[in-house]
């Protein structure tokens, strides 16, 4: 491969049920910033069926060109057809960088494309920069967020999956326009057969703006009621640490931390948890962190914006009342 042949930045725009996933807009926001440093074009590639005006949303959020592949087989996630058509488009367009959202779909699809193209892929990036030689520096947390690895790709395209809710999308601007390039789909045998679609239901804690998270400082399962009350006052949801799930007090969908969910809410309230490295790995990027713990030496205070040293059974109800007065 001749590196000089590759130009431009491409974002894989993921859609579910005909709606573009917001991570795609975040990638276009970041992509626009990186592309302007290099003076290159930002494009999006979207696969779906009868997406209609939704395609224009990609322009409103920064795409200058949209490669659109429209076919009934592409309406939902069809792994082999998605891979086949995206590989075709990348081989044709030759972008120097391709970004995917680190959603389940993105993390399932992108490795296949990288393997097929014979190029590198960096997983779950939280920052992207342009390096000295105009190359993409892909930054990702490693070892429970204790370090950040800076990775470069020696081949082209440079590919990365990027964590949801880390990059900022541009403000939606309906005056932005661009060129839709219709790509004739090539349909291959899907092999896999989706026989049913069930709703996952339950809690998606990663989407919450406010999380009140409890740890071993709570003495029994029922004491989580006071956290629920504070969460209600704040318009948030309740999370927990791993020991609480191990006790069987809460479902794993509530677990925050290395082996649970990674979250980045506007407000994270850590109650009665010390802040192990494994827990911090799942919440350290929260916008504002409030810690409530009776032990002033608990590591959670080191990452907190606000801390209250005290008995959570006293502090939490009082805080809920104070919050209600002000909202």
């Amino acid at each position, binding site marked *: 491969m001749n590196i000089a042949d590759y130009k431009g930045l491409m974002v894989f725009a993921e859609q579910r049920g005909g709606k573009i996933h917001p991570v795609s807009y975040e990638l276009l926001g970041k992509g626009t910033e990186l592309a302007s440093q290099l003076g290159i074009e930002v494009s999006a590639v979207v696969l779906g069926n009868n997406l209609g005006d939704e395609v224009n949303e990609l322009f409103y959020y920064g795409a200058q060109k949209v490669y659109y592949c429209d076919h009934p087989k592409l309406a939902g996630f069809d792994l082999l057809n998605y891979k086949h058509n995206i590989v075709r488009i990348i081989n044709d367009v030759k972008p120097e960088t391709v970004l995917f959202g680190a959603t389940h779909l993105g993390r399932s699809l992108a490795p296949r494309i990288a393997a097929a193209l014979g190029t590198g892929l960096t997983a779950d990036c939280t920052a992207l920069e342009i390096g000295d030689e105009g190359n993409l520096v892909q930054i990702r947390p490693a070892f429970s967020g204790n370090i950040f690895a800076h990775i470069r790709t020696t081949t082209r395209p440079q590919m990365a999956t990027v964590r949801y809710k880390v990059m900022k999308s541009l403000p939606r601007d309906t005056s932005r326009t661009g060129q839709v390039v219709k790509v004739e789909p090539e349909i291959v045998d899907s092999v896999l057969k989706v026989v049913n679609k069930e709703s996952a239901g339950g809690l998606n804690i990663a989407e919450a703006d406010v999380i009140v998270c409890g740890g071993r400082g709570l003495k029994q399962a029922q004491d989580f009621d006071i956290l629920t009350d504070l969460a209600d006052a704040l318009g948030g949801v309740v999370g927990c640490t791993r020991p609480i799930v191990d006790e069987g007090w809460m479902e794993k969908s509530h677990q925050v931390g290395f082996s649970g969910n990674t979250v980045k809410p506007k407000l994270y309230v850590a109650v009665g948890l010390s802040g192990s490295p494994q827990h911090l790995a799942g919440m350290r990027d929260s916008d504002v962190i409030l810690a409530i713990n009776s032990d002033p030496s608990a590591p959670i205070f080191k990452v907190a914006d606000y801390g209250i*040293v*005290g008995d959570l059974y006293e502090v939490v109800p009082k805080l809920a009342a104070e919050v209600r007065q002000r909202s």
Partner: protein
Amino acid sequence: MPDIVVPIKQVPDMERVKFDTEAGRIDRSSAPGEINPFDLHALEAAIRIKEKLGGTVTTISMGPPQAESTVRDSLARGADCGILLAGREFAGADTWATSYTLACAIRKVGKYDLIICGEKTVDGDTGQVGPEIADWLDIPHVAYVSEIRDTGEKSITVVAEMEDDRLVIEAPFPVLLTVTKDLNMPRLPSFQDKMRARKAEIAKWGAADIADVADPANLGLKGSPTRLNKVVIPSEEGRKGKVFRGSSAEAAASVAEALAGLGVLGGAK
């Protein structure tokens, strides 16, 4: 009777391992190596299928010579045979070169109906090797499998977690699955199992042993398209770190006031 391959990795016990913040790396000597926890769920799934339908379970690991203990552990837990890919040529591989090497070894094993991988490893945390192996072998894969609904002689029906949706997917063999921790509860090996595994034969393959199926240019660091530029240790700067002590009523009021000032209140239910 399906033949099943389970790629496994030796990782440090991440709940116990110490971290050298000065050097920016984990101190691997501070915790013993073990089978990647996600791989235990993959292995358990494979053994349950074997118990139901017969067939074989083969584990393959790429790693340093001491990863032999991890392969041995997989035999104690029910795998029929284990292969260790060890050698200087494999060192420094990224996910692309790792998946290439494992795929070549699987091809050399020959017959495979199912390949079951953990969703990711706890140290690398990429989740890329499974889907990349599938692509090298030109077979489909299903990622984030949380449930196996049915296994037959020719296909398997699984539930894939796609955040808000759960897709029930019927996949004909051969197929690769990456599985989550919700799939099952891995069993512990008995004392007898461990004793039996201690004496078992483990195949050790170096680059020369897979030279008929693997291009040496694609192995190890040399074959890796990504490079680590540097590691950076994050600082916790930028946090206000305002701690209130004393009266809980006053502290609660002060914090509520501060939060109101930041505009994060107002979402009450």
